């Protein structure tokens, strides 16, 4: 890091001193990937493309949103920005240059075939009808699912629960041994939404996207039922006590890594715990964790696919001083040297087909990676994200309100419908 600092300072000095025509700086701001990873990507890309200097700034998600809005509202956006598909991208659509041109330059006219299909599909999530532009290009993909702590399940002499009934028994046992049955920092809206998306997917696969399209109402029984199950998970002691007052990052994560959580909701990105500096004993080589699917909550059998999709995509802003240089950087981070550096940190799964980490530390780590990329990811049909910012927000609020007991599940579902109506 210190080295890179010095290098970038030196680079800056070089730019100002020499200012040769080939030198151009591309600025990137995002919440993801984390800065250590990003620094490795920058180094790799700069070696690959001399003449391009990359200036990156990262924030935690909330601060990033504030920064993005302030910059956008005063015409000060950087060249490229990190985006989530759906709501976030749609909010900034008018500030983004269509990126398909860049993709064609980088990968040819059949560029779409070189990505996982779900990644291509979700890039345009929430676009107005008839708008076929890509306002960003997918970098990382993911599934959302549950994880368990291997030594804890061994100590409990238990296997991952497959139905809600099993989950309840499992939870009772975990509690009696002092473990959190399912560790969640439900103070964060996104993790509440992630769990609800899995519940509603479990109960009525695909229904929520129909409701978003206005084909069915959010007040249908399935949505109410999903809210009810969510509430039950608090009342039945499946989530640890005080869950609503805790943040998922860093609050819940720290407890998970201390080995006191039997299971926890997370996603494919949890693999990156192994790649950080000073990993905990459980995270080292990902030896202590295994992924599993959300239990069947209806008793009628859960669907055999996962929800997931794009984790982070990158958009080129209309502000970009040098579109080609910006495009070069984005492409390199998706499939080039920068992408390899990114994947080597297990930050999440690639959106571009054919990338594999250079080295696996343990067999378990390799097995988990292969399971995600070869088995789970190809089954993903439905998006983790919603297209509408208003519904997304209403969902996060309604889940908190239902969990706190302030409103009933039916009222929660009504909140979604109201938000949907307010937009249309």
């Amino acid at each position, binding site marked *: 890091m210190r080295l890179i600092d010095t290098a970038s300072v030196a680079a800056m000095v070089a730019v100002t001193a020499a200012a040769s025509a080939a030198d151009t700086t591309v600025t990137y701001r995002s919440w993801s990937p984390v800065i250590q990873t990003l620094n490795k990507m920058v180094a790799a890309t700069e070696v690959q493309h001399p003449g391009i200097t990359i200036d990156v700034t990262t924030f935690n998600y909330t601060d990033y949103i504030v920064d993005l809005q302030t910059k956008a509202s005063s015409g000060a956006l950087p060249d490229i920005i990190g985006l989530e598909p759906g709501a976030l991208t749609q909010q900034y659509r008018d500030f983004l240059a269509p990126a398909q041109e860049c993709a064609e330059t980088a990968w040819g006219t059949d560029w779409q075939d070189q990505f996982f299909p779900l990644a291509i599909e979700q890039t345009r999530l929430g676009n107005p009808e008839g708008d076929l532009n890509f306002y960003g290009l997918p970098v990382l993909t993911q599934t959302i699912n549950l994880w368990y702590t291997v030594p804890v399940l061994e100590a409990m002499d238990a296997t991952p629960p497959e139905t809600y009934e099993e989950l309840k028994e499992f939870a009772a046992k975990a509690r009696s041994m002092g473990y959190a049955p399912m560790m969640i920092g439900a103070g964060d809206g996104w993790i509440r939404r992630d769990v609800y998306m899995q519940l509603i997917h479990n109960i009525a696969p695909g229904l929520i996207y129909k409701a978003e399209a206005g084909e069915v109402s959010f007040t249908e029984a399935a949505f109410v039922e999903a809210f009810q199950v969510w509430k039950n998970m608090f009342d039945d002691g499946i989530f640890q006590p005080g869950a609503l007052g805790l943040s998922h990052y860093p609050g819940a994560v720290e407890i998970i890594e201390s080995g006191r959580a039997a299971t926890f909701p997370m996603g494919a990105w949890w693999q990156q715990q192994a790649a950080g500096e000073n990993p905990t004993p459980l995270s080292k080589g990902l030896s202590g964790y295994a992924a599993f699917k959300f239990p069947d909550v209806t008793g009628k059998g859960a669907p055999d696919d996962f929800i997931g999709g794009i984790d982070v995509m990158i958009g080129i802003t209309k502000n970009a001083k040098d579109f080609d240089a910006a495009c070069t950087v984005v492409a390199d981070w998706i499939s080039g040297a920068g992408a390899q550096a990114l994947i080597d940190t297990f930050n999440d799964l690639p959106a571009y087909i054919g990338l594999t980490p250079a080295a696996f530390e343990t067999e378990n780590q390799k097995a988990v990676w292969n399971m995600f990329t070869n088995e789970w990811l190809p089954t993903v049909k439905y998006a983790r994200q919603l297209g509408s910012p208003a519904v997304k927000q209403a969902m996060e609020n309604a889940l908190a309100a239902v*969990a706190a007991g302030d409103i009933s599940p039916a009222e929660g579902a009504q909140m979604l419908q109201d938000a949907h109506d307010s937009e249309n």
Partner: protein
Amino acid sequence: MWSKQAFQEREGLIFIVPALLLFFAFILYPAFYIFYAGMLDWDGLNPGRFVFFENYKRMFTSDRPFWLAMRNSLYWAPLTIGPQMVLGFAIAFLLEMRMPFKTLFRMIFYVPAIISPVVIGIVWQRIYNPFGGLLSDIGFSTGMNFLSTPFLADTDIAIFAVIAVNVWQWMGFSMLLYIAGMQGISAEVLEAARLEGLTVRQTAMYVVWPMLKHVHLTLVLLGIIGTLQTFPLIFIMTSGGPNHATEMLPNYIFQQGFILQNMGYASALSVVLLLLALGLSVFQVNVLGARFALGKVQ
């Protein structure tokens, strides 16, 4: 030629011009700006739509978080100011009476008031967390089960848990002002109280407390300012949750404006906060007037 009066007025104006310039640029213009933006349906990015008083209508008729924020402010002001004054006074008095290591104690109590709210928010989340947190683990090991209440997760309790942290944070500041005030009380007064046969507690309550009226007033004023400005603590510790139970106006404005991108609505909320602040300021200056501040009561 300037007449004498005109010259004086011009000189007076020169004295206030620097302050006014900054005021116009960084306060008055932004205030007008939010007043205008408060009448827009606007995401802060794309062109807004003029909706007149639609935002205000929504706020007053159907916005539960807004009313929760108002309710919480009503809790916040007295529950912060009262305990903070009493505790601050008691500690200041005890320290001044007979405490060795006075300076050390002062520092211990005062430091929370100056450290970053970011630090405070993060640490207190850990203290309150009922799973592995400090209070709950003390509760489990001593049998005091009430300590494992999910303080920040229970919508009925959360606001009080946050207020407690705020008192913890600012008590030292009151203490410091009281210590300063007590320096002004002469030793003869205390000696007289002793000769009258008053106990230490009586001396504190009936002799010293009434002599510190100007400090009380200052603390009330600062407490009300603090209530209206409470932001970082809420933002870091609870983000106004769960389900807006700890919502306060600045945080709600921030969430609406930046996280939900309802900049127009956030501006309308800001206008309400601005008017509240204005009303309270004028009230205070009129009622407390020049007596407020650390100068003596006239």
